[in-house]
């Protein structure tokens, strides 16, 4: 929905070239610290791409930039053929749009008052002013689709927020599991499906047939996702009561709920035993073959990375130091140095 609202539609070469995501010169500074420096990165459609590197290399920061959580200091991310993430352009213009009607109304009120207009008229003008100011403010804060579509026409660009990225087709999991602990597994997946469901609070209040049908269908579909990741019949369990491995799976099921094109997995096998790791590898492979997902993976377990990735990118100190097939990366001396340190002279 909102995806259409973003930026210019990029030249279709990135899409026709089979690139689902294309990051160009992405940089992120936190004060003096450069967490991610000038990274070019592409994800071909339908592939499994891994991002590896020692601790503190900037993998998760890069991940969060793609997911819309951090705004980049520089650089552009094109996702699914649209410029989604970049530095804001002419964002300072926006407040002017919000306050202009209110300002004009205020002037009118003052003019009316100084010309000795009756109280009633001043009240009406002031009321209209207040209403105009509030409606523009609410539009500015809530950012409805139409408003977002109109913005690029006057040259204003705002980087996509996490929910915009989800609507554009990006799902993610977190390094430290962030499930909704006190909700059931099924409800977690239903929250994941939020952006695809259409019923509003008005539908809910009047319990319209559309709302009831949608809820029923959504619950069935959600149960399907739970079964897909291997949580058959656990839909009534509270997320916090699930064992660790199941929580990781549930997080994937939740991310699948939005029907993503690209799935970002942040260390999906962290803390798992070898058997669970094998199951996770099998699951990720199945996601690609059965749902046609493209997967970006952050992982420390080299066995996982080498066995399922099509391409591997290595980060160190926020910079990309190597890229290529698993075999190439494994043989790259720079990578070995980053992980094991430089050989003694």
């Amino acid at each position, binding site marked *: 929905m909102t995806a259409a609202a973003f930026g210019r539609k990029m030249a279709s070469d990135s899409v026709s070239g089979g690139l689902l995501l294309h990051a160009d010169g992405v940089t992120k500074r936190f004060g003096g610290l450069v967490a991610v420096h000038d990274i070019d990165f592409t994800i071909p459609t339908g592939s499994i791409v891994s991002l590896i590197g020692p601790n503190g290399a900037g993998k998760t920061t890069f991940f969060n930039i793609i997911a819309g*959580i951090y705004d980049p200091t520089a650089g552009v991310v094109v996702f699914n053929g649209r410029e989604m993430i970049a530095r804001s352009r002419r964002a300072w213009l926006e407040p002017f749009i919000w306050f202009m009607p209110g300002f004009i109304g205020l002037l009118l009120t003052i003019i009316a008052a100084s010309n000795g207009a009756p109280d009633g008229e001043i009240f009406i003008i002031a009321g209209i002013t207040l209403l105009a100011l*509030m409606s523009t*403010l*609410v539009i500015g*804060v*809530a*950012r409805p689709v139409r408003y977002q579509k109109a913005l690029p026409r006057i040259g204003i660009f705002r980087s996509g*927020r*996490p*929910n915009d990225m*989800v*609507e554009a087709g990006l799902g993610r999991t*977190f390094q430290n599991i*962030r*499930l*909704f*602990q*006190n*909700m*059931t597994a*099924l*409800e977690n997946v*239903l*929250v*994941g499906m*939020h*952006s*695809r*469901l259409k*019923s*509003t*609070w008005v539908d*809910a*209040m009047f*319990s319209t047939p559309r*709302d009831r049908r949608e809820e*029923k269908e959504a*619950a*069935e579909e959600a*149960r*399907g996702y739970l*079964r*897909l990741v*291997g*949580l*058959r*019949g*656990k*839909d*009534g*369990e*509270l997320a916090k009561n699930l064992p660790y491995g199941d929580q990781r799976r549930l997080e994937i099921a*939740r991310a699948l*709920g*939005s029907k993503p094109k690209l799935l970002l997995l942040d260390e999906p096998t962290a803390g798992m035993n070898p058997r669970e790791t*094998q*199951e996770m590898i*099998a*699951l990720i492979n*199945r996601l690609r073959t059965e749902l046609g997902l493209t997967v970006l993976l952050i992982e420390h377990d080299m066995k996982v990375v080498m066995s399922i990735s099509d391409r591997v990118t290595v980060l160190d100190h926020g910079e990309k130091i190597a890229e290529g097939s698993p075999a190439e990366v494994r043989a790259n001396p720079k990578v070995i140095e980053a992980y094991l340190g430089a050989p003694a002279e």
Partner: protein
Amino acid sequence: MSATPSVEAEKTGKVEAPNSPRLGEWRTRIRAFTQAHRSWTIVIGMAIGSVVLFFWAAFPPFSFVQGQNTWISGFVNAGVFILLALGLNIVVGFAGLLDLGYAAFFAFGAYLYAFGASPFTHLHLPFLLLLVGGAVVAAVFGIALGAPTLRLRGDYLAIVTLGFGEIVPIVFLNAEKYTQGTNGIGGVDRPNIFGYEFPGIDQTAYYVLMTIVVTIVLILVYRLLDSRIGRAWAAIREDELAAAANGINTVTTKLAAFALGATTAGFAGVLNASKLTIVDPTQFQFQVSFVVLAMIVLGGMGNPFGVAVGAFVLYNIQNVLLKQLNAVTDNLNIPILQDIDFVKFQFLLFGIALVLMMMFRPEGLIPSQRRRQELHSAEADSEADLEALAPDAGEVAL
């Protein structure tokens, strides 16, 4: 994989439960009805409860304390607080946004009614129009308060809302030209619904109206709780970042919570103004916000039924029980107790109750039980459809 045990346990648990077969059968039948038709359950429950309370108020033990009409009047006032508590519960209990200035929205509803139907403005608009209008105005101000505070969380949000709650009555107090300041706007019209003028002394009409409004609000609140937006609120309460990363527009969702929460305060304001026939700034002070919040916490945050019961009970403790305690202790001739004015100590008692509550039962008297959706029963029916969606789901193990 290990799915079946929990399902099995659920089934056997249901079979074992009843002791005498007849009673158990009725119980399961009632439970099935309440789960399938929640709105009708609320309507029937409220109807029975209100009728019983109405007539019982004329008999012991109620009649020992005060007359039936006084009781009914008190129940109507309690209804105002039930509405307030149900609304604040949306903001605090569902969405997890601590709002300490909730009385402000109450004030907007009340003053709207005072402006719309009193000799002060010489306007006498229809009651039902103003009832809706009060809710709309309160919702608009709910958004107005919500919009600038969306980036705030926890303590900071509480402080800003506290400020808002203080500003509003003070503005109404000081804008003397338009609100008559401390005197308030008096002589407000009593409700007139389709030509039926509400009598001043007999409170029955108010009681019926209040019951209807509370019933409707309860139904709507429960529907919201189980809807898409209710899940979104719960998700934001649990983990805002994860909610955003799952496609929830946190901004609009929180604004909706503020707006919908404020609407019931608007209803409450209009009803209260029409009952008291006077609106003045002292009715909307911070203690209203505080008492309503205490009602939510004691009743069971997040559970509309618990919150409503909590509000009803607490109001009656505050306004009936404490006065009765005074009367009783005055007659007892026990030196110390005689001197204690329990009404003056009500906030001390509230405080003690809250502390004890937090220590022993932090979830409230009637906590919310996350509805077990009709998952297990529906599972068998949907098996076929699921096969189409995920053919050999669950068999991930190598």
